[in-house]
């Protein structure tokens, strides 16, 4: 069904064409939950990207020795192991960020992007291709979270990466949960609009 694609295409598809958040709409829980600031979005994205790359690689390597019936449990154990590694590393070296992200780090285990890529890509592709896929998806996810976090922080807190731009209160709703939905909705709408405009032009 899928034709073999070049490594470059494989990498870039995760960023725009198949962006996990804006196009595939996967992993909405951390997307909406942690993106109240740009730093949080970046940290969460990086943690997820690491897990994606490592689990995709590990799963692509062992896919042939894992019987079909226990495929999912085995994948989840592998993913959970990498998530725990990330959590321990963050607790040790970036304690402040770890506290901010809190519960959302262990929740990477159940992030549909990770298991989704393991199932859809890593279990039927080579190790290198899977790593690239994980990296592309991870970068795409990070980009999406960073964009959301930056917009929400700018509007809600009038600051950028924690630096207050104007000494005043922002539009509070943007750092609260509804603001996450509103911002995500507007971004998706904008992307759709851009895409449609482009396809009209080519026709």
């Amino acid at each position, binding site marked *: 069904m899928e034709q073999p694609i070049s490594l470059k295409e494989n990498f870039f598809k995760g960023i725009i064409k198949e962006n996990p958040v804006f196009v595939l709409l996967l992993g909405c829980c951390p997307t909406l939950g942690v993106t109240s600031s740009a730093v949080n979005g970046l940290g969460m994205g990086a943690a997820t990207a690491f897990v994606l790359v490592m689990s995709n690689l590990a799963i692509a390597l062992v896919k042939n*020795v894992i019987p079909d019936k226990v495929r999912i449990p085995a994948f989840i154990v592998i993913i959970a192991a990498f998530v725990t590694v990330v959590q321990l590393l963050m607790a040790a070296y970036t304690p402040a960020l770890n506290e901010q992200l809190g519960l959302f780090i262990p929740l990477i285990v159940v992030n549909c992007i990770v298991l989704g890529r393991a199932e859809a890509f890593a279990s*039927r592709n080579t190790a290198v291709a899977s790593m690239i896929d994980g990296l592309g998806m991870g970068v795409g996810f990070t980009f999406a979270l960073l964009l959301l976090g930056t917009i929400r922080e700018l509007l809600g807190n009038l600051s950028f990466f924690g630096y207050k731009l104007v000494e005043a209160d922002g539009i509070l709703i943007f750092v609260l949960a509804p603001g996450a939905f509103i911002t995500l909705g507007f971004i998706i709408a904008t992307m759709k609009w851009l895409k449609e405009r482009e396809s009209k032009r080519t026709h």
Partner: protein
Amino acid sequence: MAAAKSSFLNLVITLTIVTLVASLSLGYVYEWTKEPIAEAQMAKQLKAIESVVSGYDNNPVLESYRLPTPDGRDSLEFFPAKKKGELIGVAVKTKSSKGYSGDIWLMVGFNVNGDIQNIFVIEHKETPGLGSKMTTPKFLQQFMGRNPATMKLTVKKDGGDVDAITGATITTRAFSGAVQTAHETFKKSTVNGAAN
């Protein structure tokens, strides 16, 4: 793709190996990060203590002890600040579960008379922009140098002396309650002469 055969034995063996490898590597990472995590936590506590009591020359974390709260339901951690062996103040780690979301952890610094020197918010999950304002000096200032014996630690709306944060009365109530608990526990400890 040619997946391995799904015989029962095969399933058991594969899963066992996968979990075994995963747990072994986790054990290794755990050992490796144990020290830095402990250090980060120690640094965090020291930072909190430093910002609420000053002028000590001991390591309050190493001399910390726990005392039960007056209602006996919980116990609080006390960090004595000493200069040349003499007690000059105590940092009390206290918490409230009555906040808007999650526990609020505070470090309250008292001098030997029980005056509040400063309060540091260690951890909270209050609403950003509303309850989170309790970490700002503007809110914390009203507690500095005050003694809870003369300052009624309830929100003005409830007949106390605390100026509530606009839109975050629940947070302010929880905050004041935590400080009150810290003070009561501290007072009891000095009355019993148990302040180390």
